[in-house]
């Protein structure tokens, strides 16, 4: 489980990664295994705030642990694309949206509470 300290440290470490992910609409982690679902996750941020960075960091870690090879994270910076906030009904930042598999789930916050993230992503039942 991630602690806040670790999150912050991670945020620094992954800043470069987040930056590289930002300008492009998506940062792919391909290698979808045939037969299993591809998780399409979208993380909405507004600039590189500590919370956003922490969220990205936490998300990446969690995905690697739980969804090895079958996830895709898309980071949307609403400062760049403000219209998307409206289209995707984003209020809180950061917000993680599970686009696929359906149904759409929304998880807000810096994703530091892994338990809740798992519940939110409905990964808990799969374990």
């Amino acid at each position, binding site marked *: 489980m991630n602690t806040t300290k670790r999150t912050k440290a991670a945020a620094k470490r992954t800043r470069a990664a987040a930056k590289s992910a930002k300008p492009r609409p998506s940062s792919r982690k391909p290698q979808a295994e045939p037969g299993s679902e591809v998780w399409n996750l979208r993380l*909405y941020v*507004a600039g590189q*705030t500590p*919370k956003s960075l*922490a*969220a990205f960091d936490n998300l990446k870690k969690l995905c690697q642990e739980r969804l090895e090879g079958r996830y895709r994270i898309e980071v949307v910076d*609403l*400062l760049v694309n*403000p*219209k998307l*906030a*409206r289209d995707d*009904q*984003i*209020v*809180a*930042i*950061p*917000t993680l949206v599970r686009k696929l598999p359906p149904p*759409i*789930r*929304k*998880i*807000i*916050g*810096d*994703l*530091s*509470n*892994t338990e*809740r*993230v798992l*519940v*939110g992503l409905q990964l808990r039942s799969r374990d």
Partner: protein
Amino acid sequence: MKAKNNKTPRTGLAKCRTGIRGLDEITEGGLPRGRPTLVCGNAGSGKTLLALEFLVRGALEQDEPGVFMAFEETPQELAQNVATLGFDVKGLIARNKLAVDYVHIERAEIEETGEYDLEGLFIRLASAIDSVGAKRVALDTLEALFGGLSNTLVLRSELRRLFRWLKDKGVTAIITAERGDGTLTRRGLEEYVSDCVILLDHRVNDQIATRRLRIVKYRGSTHGTNEYPFLIDEQGFSVLPITSLELKHSASTVRISSGIPQLDEMLGGKGYYRGSSVLASGTAGSGKTSVAAHFVDAACRRGERCLFFTFEESPNQVLRNMRSIGIDLQPWVDNGLLQFHAARPTLHGLENHLAVVHKLVNEFEPRAVVLDPINNLASAGTLSELKAMLMRLVDYMKASQVTALFTSLTQDQDNLEQTDVGISSLMDTWLLLRNLESSGERNRGLYVLKSRGMPHSNQIREFTLTDHGVELRDVYLGSAGVLTGSARAAQEMRERAEAVAQQQETERKRYGLERKRHALEAKIAMLRAEFEAEAEEMNEVIAQDELRQRRQLNGRADMARSRGTISGIKPRKGGRK
């Protein structure tokens, strides 16, 4: 910064005209410009509509685009809901005058995992504001956030930041909030929005609902402090700042006919003053509506517009009934001079009635208004409320120089000079219609109880409804009291008979005199004839006497001559002869 919009320069606070009827008057110019205003109220009290109308009117009338951020209704729902009010939300959106953003937060769909903020909301709002260049913002109902998100600490700090941000943006904002139990808002939003707080209320009293609006606070500005009734009708919101009127309406000296010549006669010969308030009170069936109908008829004949509010009968019924006494109001209805407005008193609250009267008077601009009857309205509220309402109504009518005729039904025959409504002191002219019971009959009587500023008759007149309208007749005051109806008719007949007898008597006397004169004259003629006959006779005698004398003389002279013995004198005498 917008001095032209600032109605009260002495406060120094820039104001943003809402364009909502009446609200700008109470707030003395509008909402604080560039600041958020909190509108709170219970469910269904009209918060959303107020917020939306503020934006729509701003876009249409002040050329200030707006952003509507809805937390409860989708843009489609919103557009549909207000389409009946004549707001073309879709059109405004298409013309870039209005941006609507629907914020959907569903707790069940959201998992909270750690720290977050509401930057997304800010971004959306900023983007919407930028997209139309908005000067006005409405957030309806912001508290929905509390329903969707559980971290109230975050929410509170974010809301504080939001209001600060709105101020920094310089937009005039309306934030709506649900009313809480004992507090203005359920979530204590009034803590953050402290510039202007408007409270909407939808109260039910005796099963009748009335909407009211009150400015709870308005920092840096004077404002009306009362609860003002407001209406939501097909033209949107209208607030009635009636009691803010001062007692300074001008008094006209123009007199207008009451429509009943004899009544005009009683009122100093000229009728009512223009712009005065006339009360016709009386018991059931004493002819109040007929007096009103005459008044309306006379006004229409002068080419003036009239409004007839009827709270008991349908317009058709009034028309039919008045036709039966020879007053045909239909032509006036047809040519648009006369407008009827019929409503059950219990249809809505008093304030609403007042608002409706207000609105119609404003739109139709009549010179004469009839309310028939006012005491019936008491069923829509308490008497004190009714009195307050009528006071405002009378004030309003006077201010607009509308001559108003109110009818009032008095229940108590013994206590006629006290209307149930207790508004007589507001009235300039008070006609009292009463039933006079005598000799097994019930007849109508009318008298002028008071009429300010003019000499008026102190007489009771009998009031009859004929097939050509109301007629007023002198009543008979005798030892048996006031005579009316058939007693009066009998008295009239008796008097007529007496008059005839009197005339006959005189005639007879005159005839007798004439006859006497004739007789006398005949007598005189006879006497004269007698005299003449006598005179003639006498003359004859005299003539004969003279003749005889002459003959005698002649005979004497002859004798003398023949004698020749006459003295010198005698022959000379005879010679001369």
